[in-house]
């Protein structure tokens, strides 16, 4: 096994390190306080108090009320809950609006609604421009009288491009349409204040903000019609059955506290590291390009294409130096075609196959950036030497 201390970890949009403070907060609930929060005795009841506390912390990070927070098992469950709830609340509305670049949790759900629900649906998948941004006018035109819900991610996981959620949610509200946003990549990286927004549902995931895996949240605005996805006990006020994942809920609460405290650093120091990495790579490696809008982007994400070489080969060479990142190439997407996000943006095949996503966190250091900047050019040059499409004089 690779020593965690050796990892130059730049794959934080995939998952993040559990913050030491988070682990510390969780331990008592794994080791000692195993009571069921629903029990009548004090041994269980005190655990219930810890959940209440965590709920407040999550709400505070989002600018929400504690009772608007529903704990789930992951971002995917939150997404499914929101979309199915809207469709069941409005059985005569069978139109859903989303984008071409959603995470599979929303994409594959929306594309299979007919099979999953047994009802016929209409689906509008909004196109994005070459820089990954959405056209608001096209969005407005897509909304119809039978639109049950709009589901648009806050920020794209591959490119980091941020969508105009405030504006889009306002437009949906004006038309009386529910608005869901998958904010899994945005929470903790950019400020969110749901009090000022017309968002009805918002999904987040613990392990993307230095919390544990296996815990998610669905924010449900007060007064929004709601049908539970997991039906069972009275947990979460009947909105999500199943005994609470206590330790992870406590951990997520702590992670939200930390995220609020680190928000400024994320948008200054981490962003500066990202910019240094990005500019360094683009200037030292010819035929490289940035995927995604230059400024409307998460502060931690850089998605860069290196033409004429393939992503998996790049990643495995990086792996030799313990550098961890992701690629949108066919071989790494689990299918035989490159990432649906890059294809929707019209990134040419020459570049899509050689795309690498670097996603940073507050744990990255300048020394790590320098290390990656030193190692990348020879890796790309070596693979290009081997590529039949690479012309040395190009």
């Amino acid at each position: 096994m690779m020593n965690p201390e050796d990892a130059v970890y730049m794959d934080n949009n995939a998952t993040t390190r559990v913050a030491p403070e988070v682990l510390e907060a969780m331990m008592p609930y794994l080791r000692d306080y195993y009571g069921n929060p629903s029990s009548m005795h004090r041994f269980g009841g005190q655990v219930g108090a810890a959940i209440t506390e965590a709920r407040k912390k999550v709400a505070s990070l989002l600018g929400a009320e504690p009772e608007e927070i529903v704990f789930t098992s992951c971002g995917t469950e939150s997404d499914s809950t929101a979309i199915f709830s809207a469709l069941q609340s409005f059985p005569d509305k069978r139109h859903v609006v989303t984008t071409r670049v959603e995470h599979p949790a929303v994409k594959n759900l929306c594309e299979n609604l007919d099979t999953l629900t047994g009802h016929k649906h209409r689906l509008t998948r909004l196109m994005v421009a070459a820089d990954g941004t959405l056209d608001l006018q096209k969005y407005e035109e897509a909304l119809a009288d039978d639109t049950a819900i709009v589901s648009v991610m806050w920020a794209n996981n591959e490119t980091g491009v941020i969508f105009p959620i405030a504006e889009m949610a306002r437009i949906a509200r004006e038309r009386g349409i529910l608005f869901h946003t998958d904010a899994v990549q945005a929470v903790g990286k950019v400020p969110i204040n749901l009090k000022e927004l017309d968002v009805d549902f918002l999904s987040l995931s613990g392990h993307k903000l230095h919390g544990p895996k296996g815990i998610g949240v669905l924010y449900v605005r007060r007064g929004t019609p709601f049908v539970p996805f997991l039906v069972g006990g009275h947990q979460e006020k009947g909105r999500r059955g199943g005994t609470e994942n206590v330790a992870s809920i406590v951990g997520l609460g702590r992670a939200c506290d930390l995220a609020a405290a680190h928000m400024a650093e994320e948008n200054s120091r981490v962003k500066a590291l990202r910019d240094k990495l990005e500019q360094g790579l683009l200037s030292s490696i010819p035929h490289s390009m940035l995927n995604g809008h230059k400024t409307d982007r998460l502060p931690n994400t850089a998605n860069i294409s290196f033409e004429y070489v393939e992503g998996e080969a790049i990643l495995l060479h990086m792996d030799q130096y313990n550098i961890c990142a992701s690629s949108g190439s066919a071989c790494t997407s689990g299918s035989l075609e490159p990432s649906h996000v890059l294809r929707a943006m019209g990134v040419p095949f020459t570049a899509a196959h050689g795309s690498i996503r670097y996603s940073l966190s507050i744990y990255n250091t300048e020394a790590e950036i320098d290390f990656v900047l030193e190692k990348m050019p020879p890796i790309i040059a070596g693979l290009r030497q081997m590529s039949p499409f690479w012309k040395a004089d190009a």
Partner: protein
Amino acid sequence: MWEYTNKVQQHFLHPKNVGEIENPDGIGEVGSLACGDALKLTFKVDDKGVIADAKFKTFGCASAIASSSVLTEMIIGMTLDEAAKVTNEDIADRLGGLPKEKMHCSVMGREALESAIANYRGLKLPMAEGEVVCECFGVTDLEIIRAIKESNLRSVEEITNFTKAGGGCGKCIDRLREILVATVHQGIDIKQIAEKPKRMTTLQKIKKIEEALEREIRPGLRKDGGDIELVDVDGDFVMVSLRGSCTSCAKSQTTLKEYVEKKLRELVLDSLIVEESK
């Protein structure tokens, strides 16, 4: 992360014979940038008809690079006739095996070699002349038929793993199924199975087929003094053996196709093909 053998990693990290031979005797070029992998193979042949040197340039993932590298190592010193017999399985074996989703990388190696030999001999490859079935990756029916025969493929998923056909938009999946059936077993009404299949593991299939046989099919056959046994499941092919009065029944083939196959498609998987094991 893929599970690559040490041999694959070695050839990927330290590839042999990278480059292009000047004034080569044979050139083979396969794949494209759009497909995500491509290989250019060049070689020199000495006066005894032996491959004296071979070099490659590859765009692609680790297994594509490793397959190309090991291929050059294998063919240097071979006569052209020997080289012509190298199969994609030989390439994969030399690497200690490839993940099944990556078998197409070894196929690419064999195709480049074949095309380079044809180029040396001044021949035109018949493969390119087939009808393009998979538009995403430009795979022809002749290439697919060959892969089915050579590597004994038994499902559309395997065809995709070996040739990439069907791995893009998926529009050609029905056609692949038709070709699979026609190639493996001629004379079946291929239109019947043009439905899009669900994916199941062989174990799941066996369990469900056994259940269906027991609950739905055997009672009917037993009424007429017959019976049926499941012999094997190979991809979508279900081998059965008829027993009792079925063995001597003139209509047993009709029973197999019209009754057993129809029932199994309805109850288990709509892509199943029932055949009698002989």
